[in-house]
């Protein structure tokens, strides 16, 4: 009986076990499906392995697009787009067009470059091919993301004094006003002083390069077919030199100009060459409240378009997955919602189905969407190189004191070594005196002061003669760091040197570049208060000096340095041993 019972029990187990096995299989499969579905929901289109290897697309873009692009980069990165199961991540960096070009040539490796204008593309290709011996261009198929014409931005009241809006103004009128010694007096407003024109540095910034090209056309009396030989004619060179000598100081980007315009109003500049988009942003209050509206003058001779191309570079560092990811991001930027956002940021969308008529681009924001009526022909890469060279030859000369902190703390972490490199790079941007066709062409003037608890003259303020740069480089190499810091005293000393009538030169940009890594610890003659008074005195005597300051390292007195720069219409930048070389180059763009 017990055996029989065991048998029937085993049979019952078999009978019950088979369906149980079947049910368990179903449960197992369901568990598998659920697990897979959970993974797919969390990471759409990807397997767990793929997630570990994402595709990174690095994008260099010109800074005026930041307000439009940055939110879109975040939106795209958060949308879970993937290529071949791998998530795509865009890493975007705002960098001026000329600086980006230089960075690529020096070994930086972006996947995509979006300069402000296609003009930069042949320049990159030309230099890339020269440098690497490559037969194929690095950048091809530039496609516009958004566009904006180059305009001359003027304060409305002053533009009206020139005849706006009834009279068609152009480069000729603005240049004539700049060169007229009577200044605004020639237009019935002597109280406005001189007509001050400004543009950015053409080596760094798109609007600067385009401004110089427009000047080149005006100098040659042409609107197309500008050739290098047109720029070599003495009268053309004299014309560009006259314009450049009347110009307010340069800068590395339109952002800087825009901020200055907003802060200082008509006293800062009468006219600045900018993209239409920046005029819109200024009038929208993006840089602060304006004293009055700015209006865009569309030069009647023609202008240029900034077309903000999107270029996927063809370097060996860009693989096919990155290309596909870069294309996906481009498609996203060209989609209707993204293009409509471009309009909000002051650009003209490249999607032509988005109308401008009755949009925010209108007279309220100082612009006219039905302008410009004609363009200047985009010069060839060869002519652009000739323009840059000619500009370097005739640009406004500088009268400059470099003030360098060599106190004991500068010996830490290779700080002094990095500064020495930076100084030498800065020196490369300056121009020595030249003799051309028997005529002496002036160069820049330079002096170098070094300080710790004492102030010493490393290079006396004097014109740069041929061969001087080499000697100054050698002198810079001898610097050693020690002792304490007399920041106020050295600032006042440098100011007195510059403002001395024997040294001051009102045909030049008179400036000091002061670098320091610490607080004042040992000044005996000046305090901040008395130093600021000295600055005021120099301005009142008609010899204003711009002070650009570099707060080097974390211990520098940022607030003081910022106040010094702001009091003199200069600029304070923050430096580290890693970026100090770049900062010196950046500051050179102001001269």
């Amino acid at each position, binding site marked *: 009986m017990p055996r029989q019972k065991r048998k029937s029990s085993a049979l019952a187990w078999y009978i019950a076990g088979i369906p149980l096995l079947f049910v368990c*299989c*179903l449960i197992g*499969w369901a568990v598998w499906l659920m697990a897979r579905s959970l993974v797919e929901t969390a990471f759409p289109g990807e397997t767990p392995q793929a997630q570990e290897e994402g595709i990174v697309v690095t994008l260099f873009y010109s800074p005026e697009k930041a307000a439009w692009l940055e939110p879109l980069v975040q939106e795209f990165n958060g949308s879970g787009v993937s290529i071949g199961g791998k998530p795509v991540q865009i890493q975007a960096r705002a960098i001026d067009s000329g600086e980006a070009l230089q960075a690529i040539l020096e070994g930086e490796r972006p996947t995509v470059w979006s300069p402000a204008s296609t003009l930069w593309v042949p320049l990159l290709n030309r230099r890339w091919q020269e440098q690497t011996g490559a037969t194929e261009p690095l950048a091809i198929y530039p496609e516009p993301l958004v566009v904006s014409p180059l305009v001359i931005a003027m304060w409305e009241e002053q533009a009206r004094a020139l005849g706006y809006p009834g009279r068609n103004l152009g480069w000729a009128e603005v240049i004539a006003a700049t060169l007229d010694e009577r200044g605004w007096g020639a237009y019935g407003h002597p109280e406005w002083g001189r007509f001050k024109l400004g543009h950015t540095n053409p080596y760094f910034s798109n609007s600067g390069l385009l401004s110089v090209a427009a000047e080149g056309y005006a100098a040659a009396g042409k*609107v197309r077919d500008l050739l290098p030989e047109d720029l070599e004619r003495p009268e053309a060179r004299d014309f560009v030199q006259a314009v450049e000598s009347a110009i307010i100081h340069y800068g590395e980007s339109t952002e800087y100009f825009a901020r200055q315009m907003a802060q200082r109003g008509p006293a800062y500049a009468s006219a600045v060459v900018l993209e239409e988009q920046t005029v819109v942003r200024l009038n929208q209050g993006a840089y602060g409240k304006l004293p009055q509206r700015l209006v865009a003058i569309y030069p009647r*001779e023609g202008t240029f*378009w900034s077309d903000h191309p999107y270029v996927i570079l063809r370097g060996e560092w860009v693989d096919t997955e990155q290309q596909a990811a870069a294309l996906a991001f481009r498609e996203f930027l060209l989609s209707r919602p993204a293009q409509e956002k471009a309009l909000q940021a002051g650009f003209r969308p490249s999607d032509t189905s988005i*109308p401008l*008529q009755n949009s925010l681009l209108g007279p309220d924001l100082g612009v006219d969407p039905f302008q410009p*009526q*004609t363009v200047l022909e985009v010069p060839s890469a060869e002519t652009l190189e000739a323009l840059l060279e000619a500009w370097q030859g005739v640009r406004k000369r500088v009268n400059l004191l470099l003030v360098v902190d060599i106190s004991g703390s500068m010996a830490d972490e290779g700080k002094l070594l990095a500064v020495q490199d930076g100084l030498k790079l800065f020196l490369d941007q300056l121009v020595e005196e030249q003799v051309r066709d028997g005529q002496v062409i002036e160069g820049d003037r330079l002096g170098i002061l070094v300080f710790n608890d004492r102030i010493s003259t490393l290079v006396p303020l004097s014109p740069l003669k041929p061969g001087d740069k080499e000697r100054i480089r050698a002198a810079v190499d001898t610097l050693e760091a020690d002792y304490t810091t007399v920041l106020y005293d050295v600032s006042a000393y440098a100011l007195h040197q510059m403002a001395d009538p024997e040294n001051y030169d009102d045909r030049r940009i008179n400036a000091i570049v002061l670098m320091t890594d610490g607080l004042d610890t040992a000044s005996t003659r000046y305090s901040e208060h008395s130093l600021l008074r000295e600055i005021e005195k120099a301005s009142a005597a008609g010899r204003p000096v711009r002070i650009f300051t570099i707060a080097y390292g974390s211990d520098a007195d940022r607030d003081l340095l910022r106040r010094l720069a702001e009091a003199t219409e200069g600029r304070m930048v923050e430096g580290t041993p890693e970026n100090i070389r770049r900062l010196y180059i950046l500051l050179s763009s102001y001269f």
Partner: protein
Amino acid sequence: MRRRNLILFIVFLLVALGIAVGVLVGFLPKTSQLPDLEIWVVHATEETEWLSAAAQRFNQEGHRLGGQRIVVHLEAMDSGDALINIRDEKFVHPPTAWSPSSMLWVNLLNAEWYPRHGTDLIMRVGQYQATPLVLTPMVWVMWQDRAEVFLRHFGEEPDWDTVQKALAAPEGWKSLGGQADWGYVKFGQTDPVLSNSGLVAITLAAYDYFDRIRGLTVDELMDNNFQAWMQSLWRGIVGGYDRASANLMRDMILYGASKYDIIMVYENLVASQMKNAPGRWGTSLRVFYPRLNLWNDHPFCVLMADWSTADQKDAALEFQKFLLREDIQRQALHYGFRPANVDVPVVNDDPENPFNLYQDQGLQVQIPRINLVEVPSAEVISELQRMFRRAQP
């Protein structure tokens, strides 16, 4: 107690086994379903909008061949680039079929392919012959305010002769009675080495110069006066050469008359873009038909290459048949194309049909004063392209 443990152990074992089997089943390939039959079609840029919508619909309808679902992938490419890539076999996905803008490119590709392979890549007869999908002629497009000044000055519609004279006007628009701040007259065409519309434009210009519609020879193209005349046309191009016709048309509206006063481009692109012009520049576009013209027939060419299978070639034919279906051909009208299927009229009661909308701006159903020119030989086409290249700085 021991018995309960045994039961629990067995249940645990069964659950584990079940999960293992379930996971295995999850990984098993689905053998019951045949893989998709994928084909790749490279096409001219101006066909993009029409073909994308059509391909999407084709894929949704689930067309099959021998039980396999056909899936169409598209890639837009300038005709010149496509020719080079097909010739050099430089594709990630080799194309099963190609739809260039016109038969010109069929001649050019076969002329390059034959010496290397001893056979044509595109058939002219038989089941796989190149078959026109949609038609579009070349047109002149001008901004309305410029067109009025032009017509007043020359007393006739623009054509190669008057356009060349306008481009050579010493003071630009001012010389023609227009506003001085319009600057020089600015002309636009695409790069004839890369793009069909640019190639057709210079072909038409050459026929017009020699005042004939067939028999153009390489020797004639060497004529110095002809070369100087062509160069004066190209000198009027200040905005550079767009690579693709769709870009040229976009740029005309994007940059307005500041960059292009007059361009030569496909009728379909103008027809589909005319609505955008007033919103951008507060004025409309005006269309004119040149005296000599050439139909851009957008042939669908199944490539007789060994990189695609017989099934893929037949699948491409299925897609071609679909594109010629009446409803899909009617869709082409929205994009400004004229249907190749003669059963589909150009004018219908569709309010979106640009041929209904823009007749006042010069868009014509019956093209006036048209003389069709012969497609030149591959040698003449190549020589025209070389001439263009030599003239560039």
